[in-house]
């Protein structure tokens, strides 16, 4: 009995023990930290399961919250309106073209973003409102904080293509190949151009 329990515990602990962590810092060409940059790691040679998640892009004080929302392709996004005025959310982006009618509260149906790419959001009533949904083909993604840092945790050992996106970039940078070993904690600095 004891042997069985120990074996089960070891089996459960094995993936955690072998998980690698990638700490990324994103700076611009002048060395200043870049906030709201998205970094995502695409596993090479391994299938990625479909997303079955729901995310939220709120609207409060005529601001989309968060300003940048990374999601895995296939994720459904809700667009609640927490303001006391109406909003009309739209996107012209090829990754997802849609518009919601004028509304307050939360629309009944979430919108599924099934195609990787950058979806620029706006409000047709309040032109100052802008935000981005970054749809990525992997569950391994994060957004930088105000110091330009993020962490991709629970990565299994193997090869990855590391991709960077931020709103002010002029073109898509080439993916950075990264190889992680079991339990490795790697630090990488990326320059956003």
């Amino acid at each position: 009995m004891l042997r069985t329990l120990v074996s089960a515990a070891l089996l459960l602990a094995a993936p955690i023990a072998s998980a690698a962590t990638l700490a990324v810092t994103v700076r611009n060409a002048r060395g200043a930290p870049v906030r709201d940059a998205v970094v995502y790691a695409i596993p090479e040679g391994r299938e990625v399961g479909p997303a079955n998640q729901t995310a939220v892009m709120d609207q409060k004080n005529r601001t989309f919250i968060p300003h940048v929302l990374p999601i895995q392709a296939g994720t459904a996004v809700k667009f609640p309106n927490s303001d006391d005025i109406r909003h009309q959310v739209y996107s012209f982006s090829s990754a997802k073209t849609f518009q919601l009618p004028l509304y307050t509260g939360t629309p009944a149906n979430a919108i599924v973003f099934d195609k990787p790419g950058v979806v620029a959001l706006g409000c047709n009533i309040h032109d100052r409102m802008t935000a981005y949904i970054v749809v990525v083909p992997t569950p391994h993604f994060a957004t930088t904080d105000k110091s330009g840092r993020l962490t991709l945790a629970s990565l299994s050992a193997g090869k990855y293509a590391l991709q960077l996106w931020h709103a002010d970039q002029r073109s898509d940078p080439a993916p950075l190949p990264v190889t992680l070993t079991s339990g490795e904690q790697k630090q990488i600095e990326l320059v956003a151009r």
Partner: protein
Amino acid sequence: MVAHRGVVCQRGGGGRILCMSVVRPIAVLTLVLAFACAANADDSLQWSGFALLRGASSVDAGPLRQEQLSTQVQLGLDWLHSPVLGAHVHLLARDDNGHSKASRRGTLGVAEAYVEMNLTPGSDRVRLRGGAMFLPTSRENIDALWENPYTITSSALNSWLGEELRPIGIDASWFRRGLFAGTTVFRGNDTFGALPAARGWSLDDHWTLLGERVPVDPDYVTSVSAENDDRLGWSARGGWNGPHLLVQLTHIDNRSDGREYGELFNWGTDFDIVAVEYTVNDWTIAAESGWGPTFLIVDQKYTDDLRASYLLVSRAWSRSRASLRFDDFAVDDDGQQAWTFAYLWTPVSKLRVGAEVATTGGERRVLVELRYRFSAQ
């Protein structure tokens, strides 16, 4: 009561004959019903709006003039063919005695009607509108249907723009990463300037309808649809907005000839507005300041300098909002100030209960209001 060629007349108080065209209301109601039927069958057609019932302490004249009891229904009809192409019609019905010369027993008509096209060249966004529209510059009237979420009535500046300016033409807007610019070329609005110069400023929410004639004094009227001299007016705006701050400059020139055309007097108005808005957490601070000359030529040329500014501070909670506004407005050296405090409470999602107190020049006005929102959602 007599009816002739679509006009119904009836004898009112003091033997006055009151007339109202029945053609326009019937046409508008038909349009609404047809739209509602179509909207049920097509997701690209949407409608939303609100109805309000308002009571006010009696103020007969001056900037705080207001009906003791008034009602309004405003309805927005939107056709959303795609994010690229759409159309918008803003209908308004109101029961107010005394504002409108054409109909002293209530008015029903069109406040806005335009077709809109959105283009995305590169990372820019360009929006084209053609039709009749509010100038999209107000920092107060920021909700759909030009509704003001902060107070029941708007500042002197925006009360004037809502009552006497409705560009009828083409508007182009350009947006790029916080920078924005726009220009409007319009017909109509030849009498823009008559209200503050001749009647006086007001703190109101009386959005004039297309074709409506609003009394300026017993002898003449003003209308946003007045095009007497066949000269196009124009407006230009530009600015920048960041996550919390917006700065905007606007110029309006109706290029009116300043001449008299029957009961319509053209006022040539050149007006500049600078606007700043700062939003952080649940606080909003908004300010607009406008100034410029207007002239009228009757025997000789009369010129007035118009000036109107406001500073608004507003705090929102989950179901309520409190706002305080200071207004400063003048014609030449004849200036006035006003304070307005409003508290708006939303006990349930579609109902808003509001109270507002405004004071200026020794006058005080108290408003209470029930506002019910409806939509096709």
